[in-house]
């Protein structure tokens, strides 16, 4: 890789860089240790399998976990077909310079930059009020779907582009239609990217707070349908730490659950990507 031999009199630069790295690791170790120590004391099977009581001071987070997963499910389910279609179009059918492709790309860049609270406002005005979905898991999930589109499309497009050109040519030589070569050759080739994209998008979705407060709302009971309001895990942490005296311990425990979920997502994604690199493809 980039290993270079150290020279004699660069001790100072090396010292600065090592201390910066040590500082960064130390601060984050402090943060993680704080959450791990406070959170782990609180977590038990009961915590994961019971409903919150007394505004979350006591009891667990079961309905909140269910709402979180439902919001994530709606989000991925809504975003996937759109993302897949766009990625296929951008990767397979659009020349670099075409006006339509450029417009779509520009739109995605803008979408990637929109702050999450603005997504929240938009989701509230459009899904909750204009479409009449109210404060609901559906509103929240759809708002998040808009938010993760750029991420999902970028991953899928990279996966499709990584298919070697000879596969496309071979398919064409056999007289396969685009549709058929897509279905039998290109999409299977991009399957790991699809999975990685879904995981990344899901990770982004469960980490989100600001876009959900005014779309999926605060109600912390078990949702009966997708039109019920449901409190996401991150919203729960926010509420416990800001609004509930004596809620800190359960906030820590919920934060730990969230971090563990994200850690699993991260490690799985990294695993998929590295296996995929080994088989000769690159993102």
């Amino acid at each position, binding site marked *: 890789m980039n290993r270079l031999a150290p020279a004699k009199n660069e001790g100072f630069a090396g010292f600065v860089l090592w201390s910066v790295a040590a500082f960064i690791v130390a601060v984050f170790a402090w943060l993680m240790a704080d959450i791990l120590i406070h959170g782990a004391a609180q977590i038990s099977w009961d915590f994961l399998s019971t409903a919150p009581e007394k505004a979350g001071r006591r009891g667990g987070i079961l309905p909140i976990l269910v709402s979180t997963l439902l919001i994530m*499910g709606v989000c991925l389910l809504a975003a996937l077909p759109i993302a897949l279609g766009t990625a296929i179009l951008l990767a397979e059918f659009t020349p670099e310079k075409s006006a339509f492709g450029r417009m779509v790309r520009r739109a995605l860049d803008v979408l990637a930059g929109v702050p999450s609270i603005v997504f929240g406002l938009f989701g509230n005005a459009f899904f909750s009020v204009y479409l009449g979905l109210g404060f609901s898991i559906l509103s929240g999930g759809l708002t998040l779907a808009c938010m993760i589109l750029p991420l999902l499309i970028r991953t899928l497009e990279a996966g499709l582009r990584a298919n070697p050109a000879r596969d496309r040519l071979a398919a064409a030589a056999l007289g396969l239609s685009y549709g058929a070569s897509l279905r039998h050759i290109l999409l299977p080739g991009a399957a790991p990217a699809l999975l990685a994209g879904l995981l990344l998008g899901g990770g982004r979705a469960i980490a989100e707070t600001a876009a959900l407060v005014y779309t999926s709302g605060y109600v912390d009971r078990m949702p009966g349908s997708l039109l019920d309001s449901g409190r996401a895990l991150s919203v729960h942490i926010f509420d416990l730490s800001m609004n509930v005296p004596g809620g800190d311990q359960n906030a820590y425990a919920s934060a730990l659950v969230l971090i563990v979920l994200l850690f699993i997502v991260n490690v799985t994604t990294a695993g998929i990507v590295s296996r995929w690199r080994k088989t000769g493809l690159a993102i």
Partner: protein
Amino acid sequence: MLKILLLFWVLSLQIFLPQHTHAAGKEKTHLVLTGSSTVAPLVSEIARLFEDSHPEIQVDVQSGGSSRGIADARRGLAEIGLVSRDLKENEKDLKAFSIAFDGITIILHRDNPVKKLSNAEIVAIYQGKIKNWEKVGGHDAPITVINKSAGHSTLELFTAYFKLKSTEIHPDVIIGDNAQGIKTLSGNPDAIAYVSIGAAALEAELGTPIKLLPVANISPTLENVQNGRFPIRRPLNLVTQKKPTGWVLRFIQFARSKDVRAVIQEQYFVPLPE
């Protein structure tokens, strides 16, 4: 690949469908209540009782300040608005139903040695003219002034009673819900805040390190709110746009009935006179 995709969709449908059919099987009627953050916790408890005896009803409570309660009731976004004050002149198009009474009082951290503050001192603190606890009998520490954000009637009643303009208040921290104020104060021994008596007394009971101060030498007890001696007193109202009928009427009747007296007292509010 397509199969994997299809499988994914089918699986997800499997997850979602039973819920839909379940919901369609016994469609629940939703009552939506929004508004005052002081009333919301109380109404949530009342709603739980109501749901227990009427399983076909689901009551959703969202808090956000009295102004929102008024607006949502007017626009029909909520069946019932929650308002923790009397209706104003320009709000008389709405119907109000009181369910309980509450007061607003000053709270300090339990470790703060200050036992009471005169009205003039409170005004001076909120105007930023007194900046240190030393001046009012405490130890040498800067005062952290906690103020409510606009749109909450707790703020309106507080400023009205102390004849403060919201523009002349110099806060150090802005809070929304009562609970947020209590939480902020419990973590900062040098802070001062004003909140609903009900919320504060409930938190003190749960062990949160706060204490309630008298206002104009009247201690903030339920009796003093009940007999009207406590100066900052207000009704907790349910408001509707039209004359209530059906489930809305039944819920309002339930919230004003004897069945909920115990709940109201548990939350440190004053029930309606019998």
